[in-house]
Every structure is written in structure tokens, then in C-alpha cells.
């Protein structure tokens, strides 16, 4: 289990939206830019790591009850994305790291892979 606060510190990330409980603990991480792949995941307590910054990233997360998304490669969440995420209680984070670097750091923190 990894605290959101530790993720924010480790990745030098910004919380851009959501009532983000920094003490909340996440167990798993899944990294993909392909929402078709994300939609096949049935894992609770998951952080989505992605560079795909459009409304469908938020919609996909809503359907899967994903509570936290981190955008890598300095991708920004648009205002519409932030509004939709807030409406559904999804916290959005942004960081400048590449997906590979972000995943390596998250793995080091103890976030588990889905498979």
C-alpha cells in the first residue's frame, strides 16, 4: 500500500483536481495510453498512469471506479476533464516524468502490478 502523499513527493507531481486525501493508500498501478486495455482491468484501489489526456480517460476511470489518475510526460488535464473528474470524485495528478520513469519510481515505492 502506498500513500498518495508519497506518490506526489516521489514523482514531483501536482494535484490538479479532486478532494485528494493525501493519506489515502493505493495498492495497484496500471500504465497504459490505450483505454481499450484499461477497460479490461477489474482491480480495486488502483492508480491509472497514462499520457492519454482526453475526456474518455476520465469516463473510462468513472466506469471502472478508478479513484486516482496520474498524467505523465507533462500532459495536462483540460478544464472539462477536471470538471468531469471532480463530479465523479476522481483525483487528477500531473507529472513531468516519462511513463517509464514514473512506473519505475512507483514500483520502487511498492505499488503492485495488476498482472
Amino acid at each position, binding site marked *: 500500500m502506498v500513500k498518495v502523499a508519497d506518490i506526489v513527493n516521489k514523482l514531483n507531481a501536482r494535484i490538479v483536481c479532486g478532494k485528494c486525501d493525501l493519506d489515502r493508500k493505493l495498492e495497484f498501478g496500471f500504465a497504459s*495510453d*490505450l*483505454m*481499450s*486495455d*484499461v*477497460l*479490461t482491468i*477489474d482491480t480495486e484501489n488502483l492508480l491509472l498512469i497514462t499520457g*492519454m489526456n*482526453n*475526456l*474518455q*480517460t476520465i*469516463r*473510462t476511470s*468513472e*466506469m*471502472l*471506479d478508478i479513484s486516482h489518475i496520474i498524467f505523465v510526460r507533462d500532459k495536462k488535464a483540460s478544464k*472539462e476533464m477536471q470538471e468531469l473528474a471532480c463530479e465523479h470524485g476522481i483525483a487528477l495528478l500531473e507529472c513531468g516524468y516519462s511513463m517509464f520513469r514514473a512506473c519505475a519510481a512507483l514500483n520502487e515505492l511498492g505499488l503492485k502490478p495488476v498482472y
Partner: protein
Amino acid sequence: MEFRFEIEGGNFSKAGTASSEVKKILKQLNVDPKIIKRTVVSLYEAEVNVVAHAYEGEMNVEIIPDKVSVTIQDKGPGIPDIDQAMQEGYSTATPKVREMGFGAGMGLPNIKKNSDQLNISSKVNVGTIVEIVNYLK
């Protein structure tokens, strides 16, 4: 209970709104969260398919105490070979759809995985009807 939602072909900014409404309704009815997730994932995949491939469509939802039955019907190009479309990896999605993070040929197999009953019928150059039934208990 019956509900009807319109789906606009080609408009990705609205894709998912119908499935999102169904999710709200199922939550209000205190349906098991695991069943809600299975149901809305299958509906969302089907809704995205309409947005990606068809001109227009609609989602009709019927909820009775033990099951939710949904019909997603569209006017569009139809599916010439449904067995082929059901194969993982087979896709006719445009580059625009792929840029949105879809079109990997995983939608229909994922609908099958997340539904208790699935029936697909289609007529080329007319449209496609996807019927999904999930039991609530």
C-alpha cells in the same frame, strides 16, 4: 423502469454520458458495485462503438428487480462478419478513434466478458443492435 438515451455518432466529447446515467441509476438502486461495474463497462464499450462507427444511436434500458436489459441500436455501416468482429484484435476503427485510446479490437470481446447474455445482430449499411442482459442478483 425504462430509460432511453440518445447517442451521437462521431462526438467523442459526449461518449459515455448514457453509460454514466445508467451507472447513477444502478447506484441509486443499491445494486452490487461489482455488477454495476460489469454492466457499465459493457455499456460504455457499446456506446463508444456507436460513437466510433455509427451516425446515430440510442440506448434503451429496462431494469426489473432481478436483471438489467439494455439494447444499443444504431444507424450505421453495420458489421459484415460478426464472428470476425468478436475476435480479439480485429478492428475497423479509424485513426481518429485510435487516437482517442480505442479501436484495439477489444471492445466486443470485453462486452462479452462483462455481460451475462449478449446478442448482436447487424445489417450492412443499415445498422447494428447489441442486446446485453446482466442479472442483478
